[in-house]
């Protein structure tokens, strides 16, 4: 059952929040041993949150649009008094003294936080294999990765362990795993969702966003978590675009550009699905045309200079002095080195070194400076494209889910997994992935819609049309028996 239906039943008293929660906790218990989507499951605190929702309903209050809806939160979002590890040894045992703004907003809308989900360490990776606590598996095929870095959230939603979840997207970390797991994933416009309490990877690119099994649920969750936050200086002060209220307005007359560069190098089965999605939009009245944004091909190299540069600075604070892991040594400097040597995994170290190099005296202009110029070029290129189109369409990922271990020793091959998602992060624009059928191996395929800054309203409208036209998918191999609402079966009922 999806989030809106659950919240509806809880709000009308058809079912109690505590019963909804117990169902989902049971599903987690049954499935997560194999899936490993969760790093922490919050049985007791979730139960008391659910009881509070029921109490408020009994008292005639409305807890909000997510009343009693269990939600999973990526483990790089701070939760007060609950471990927040970023899937790193270096933060093992640290208990944040505060909640991220998005977590507060979830609770403010009546949601019940059931657990913290697995990720690539510090959100660096595309397969969730870089977690210090072991990989998450793809519910559609446990031999395959769920994508990353928000693999735990994507898998948990796909397997029906929770109807919705939060992730973070720096270069595709929501959309890529959503596509690989067959769920909806949104990266909102930079500045629409507060980053306060999101453990930073690359601050100028990071954005928190929803996972859901339906476009409507993603829209609901976006409406809940977005909005100005005075604790985040990069948070926009203007009103956010409405997602849910205008979801069903259709695409009649909407201009859609199919970006050829976002299909280059993608598997034939993926390309085919994108063209089918384009046809569905055209059939619904959109003006669909092919277009070219050549600059997006420079996005990946620019991203892999800028993101590590910011990461090298953001991750400096894990020095063993104040919190988390400390490996004692004879001096502060030696302690610092030893702590970081033991605490960080290889991919994190690789990016810290890369970023440190990129910012070093004598190299700054050639690398960081050039990459910033590329970023400006990409923003301009998108601006030109959006003179001709309201939304753009392309692949979310070049391939469907790949096998565990197949890319871990080849960082560049892994990085290429983000080639279609990175451009929007550099531009600060929103993008959404919607499941659209399967490939020859019955693995989910996602198609990606892109929009200009604050263009979420149109983007969601197009996403809803694509969702409605999507071919039937496959039921996940690992999924909650009692809930059973994999994204494909939901659509199958239509």
């Amino acid at each position, binding site marked *: 059952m999806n989030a809106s239906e659950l919240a509806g039943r809880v709000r009308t008293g058809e079912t109690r929040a505590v019963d909804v929660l117990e169902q989902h906790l049971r599903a987690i218990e049954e499935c997560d041993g194999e899936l490993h989507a969760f790093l922490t499951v919050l049985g007791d605190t979730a139960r008391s949150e659910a009881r509070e929702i029921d109490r408020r309903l009994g008292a005639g209050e409305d807890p909000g649009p997510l009343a009693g809806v269990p939600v999973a939160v990526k483990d790089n979002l701070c939760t007060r008094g609950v471990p927040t590890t970023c899937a790193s040894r270096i933060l093992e045992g640290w208990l944040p003294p505060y909640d991220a703004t998005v977590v507060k907003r979830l609770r403010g809308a009546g949601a019940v936080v059931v657990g913290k989900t697995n990720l690539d360490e510090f959100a660096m990776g595309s397969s969730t294999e870089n977690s210090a606590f072991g990989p998450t598996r793809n519910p559609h095929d446990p031999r395959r990765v769920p994508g990353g870095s928000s693999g735990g959230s994507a898998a948990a939603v796909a397997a029906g362990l929770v109807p919705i979840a939060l992730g973070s997207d720096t270069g595709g970390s929501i959309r890529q795993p959503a596509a690989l797991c067959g769920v909806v994933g949104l990266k909102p416009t930079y500045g629409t969702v507060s980053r306060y309490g999101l453990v930073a990877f690359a601050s100028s690119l990071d954005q928190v966003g929803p996972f859901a099994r339906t476009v409507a649920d993603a829209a609901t969750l976006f409406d809940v978590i977005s909005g100005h936050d005075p604790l985040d*200086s990069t948070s926009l002060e203007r009103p956010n675009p409405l997602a849910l209220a205008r979801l069903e307005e259709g695409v009649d007359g909407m201009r859609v550009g199919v970006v050829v560069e976002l299909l280059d190098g993608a598997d034939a089965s993926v390309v085919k699905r994108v063209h089918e999605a384009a046809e569905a939009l055209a059939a619904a009245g959109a003006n669909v045309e092919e277009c070219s944004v050549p600059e997006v091909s420079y996005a990946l190299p620019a991203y892999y200079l800028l993101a590590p540069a910011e990461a090298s600075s953001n991750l400096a604070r894990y020095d063993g002095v104040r919190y988390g892991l400390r490996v004692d040594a004879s001096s502060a400097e030696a302690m610092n080195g030893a702590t970081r040597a033991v605490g960080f995994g290889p991919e994190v170290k690789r990016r810290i070194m890369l970023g440190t190099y990129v910012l070093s005296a004598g190299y700054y202009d050639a690398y960081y400076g050039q990459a910033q110029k590329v970023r400006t070029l990409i923003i301009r290129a998108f601006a030109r494209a959006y003179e001709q189109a309201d939304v753009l369409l392309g692949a979310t990922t070049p391939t469907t889910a790949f096998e565990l271990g197949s890319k871990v020793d080849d960082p560049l091959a892994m990085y290429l997994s983000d080639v279609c998602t990175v451009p929007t992060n550099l531009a600060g624009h929103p993008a959404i992935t919607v499941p659209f059928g399967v490939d020859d191996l019955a693995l989910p395929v996602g198609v990606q819609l892109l929009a200009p800054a604050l263009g979420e309203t149109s983007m969601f409208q197009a996403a809803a049309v694509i969702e409605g036209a999507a071919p039937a998918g496959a039921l996940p191999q690992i999924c909650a028996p009692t809930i059973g609402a994999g994204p494909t079966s939901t659509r199958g009922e239509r």
Partner: protein
Amino acid sequence: MSVEAWEPVVGLEVHCELKTATKLFCGCRNAFGDEPNTNICPVCLGLPGSLPVLNVKAVELAMFIGNALHCEIRPSLFHRKNYFYPDMPKDYQISQYDEPINVNGWLELPDGQRVGIVRAHMEEDTGKTSHMGGGGRIHDADHALVDYNRAGVPLVEIVSAPDIRSAAQARRYVEELRAILMAIRASDGRMEEGSLRVDANVSVRAGRTDELGTRCEVKNLNSLRSLARAIEHETERQVSLLEAGEPVLQQTRHWDEQAQKTVALRSKEEAFDYRYFPEPDLVLVAPGPDWQYQVALCLPPMPAERRAKLTELLGAGGPTAAQVDQVATVVALGLDTLVVEAASSGIEVPLALARTANEAAADADRAREVDRAAYGTLLRMEQEGMLTPTQAKAVLADLFENGGHPADIARRKGFEALGAGTVVAAVADVVSAHPEEWARYCQGEDKLVGFFTGLVMQATDKKANGKEVAAELRRLRG
């Protein structure tokens, strides 16, 4: 060649802690001397996920500083200055780099010379590390304790041009800058508490060349005295190197207060690569014209203007050398309004100036808070002979300490005015008791005034006014 043939070239970097109520990027209290680690939160501790939000009051004070130093105030950016240090919570400092808020200003010294201001930019302070156990020094300490109360306190770093040519001039520059910073209420000026911290860039050059020598940066200058001594020492050290035909190496040096010398900390090669890049968690700081106008409008009178005002009050003939110093003192301490207000109520300016520069200055914090009417009353009592200078000082000390009305304090202390004729009678008694000394005085031995005054003081229980005694002695001598 001797030291005289060499000229020191000095540029100063002054770090000024801004007296805002809260820190630069969070709502924690900005206060000195609180229990360690009590004014901290996720933001100033740099906890994962926390984000900085710029304190508008700090920007405003930075703009005041820019205005007072005749700087151009520009849209500015924050950068991250990356280096590892345990008392820096994020292991980077948020600072302004190549786009600072204030550039291209100047500061005029009391003698009219100008020192260029290259920039005055905003940044956050670090915490404080205490090395414990062992010998208590960095190298033999058992462990270190870190207090993060100071982490995130707003600083403005004021960088002068290399326009300073002597230790004395460096001292005058810092004194004047401190007076300005206190005038605009940006700083409390307390060097001993670290509110103002000075680094000196020192090089030397032979006589009339325009070329600059290799410089050394001297750190740890915690007082005006150590600033001057360090520049003198560093100048001598560089001169003796050059005279011995050895090069000066570009270094960061530490002023060792006990040894009274500078010692090398690190060379140019060992200098940190700070890997500056724009702080992505903050946005451009671009004070609009309205805000800039407001600040310019609210700029209080500067020390130079206030010194001129006092000098003008002293009237024709100009101030004596002692009065020049007194004027500088009261303005530097922000006590000049005491003098101005007293003068406007009819007190003689030299008297008001002397009491303020000496007695009030010695207790400046309390003097700034003193009841202005009471202060004026006290000066009037002294001026009209109701109190002797000695008595007036005693009443003043009591007034600063406890407040109250000067007449009540004087009465409590038993400082009643002597009745008319008491001094005349006492002088007559003393003169007739010491005929020999009186004869010598009459023959012109003026210093005997002191002798007679002392005896009259004894006789009147120190209530006589020295000036009146002297006048009576002169009258009797005829």
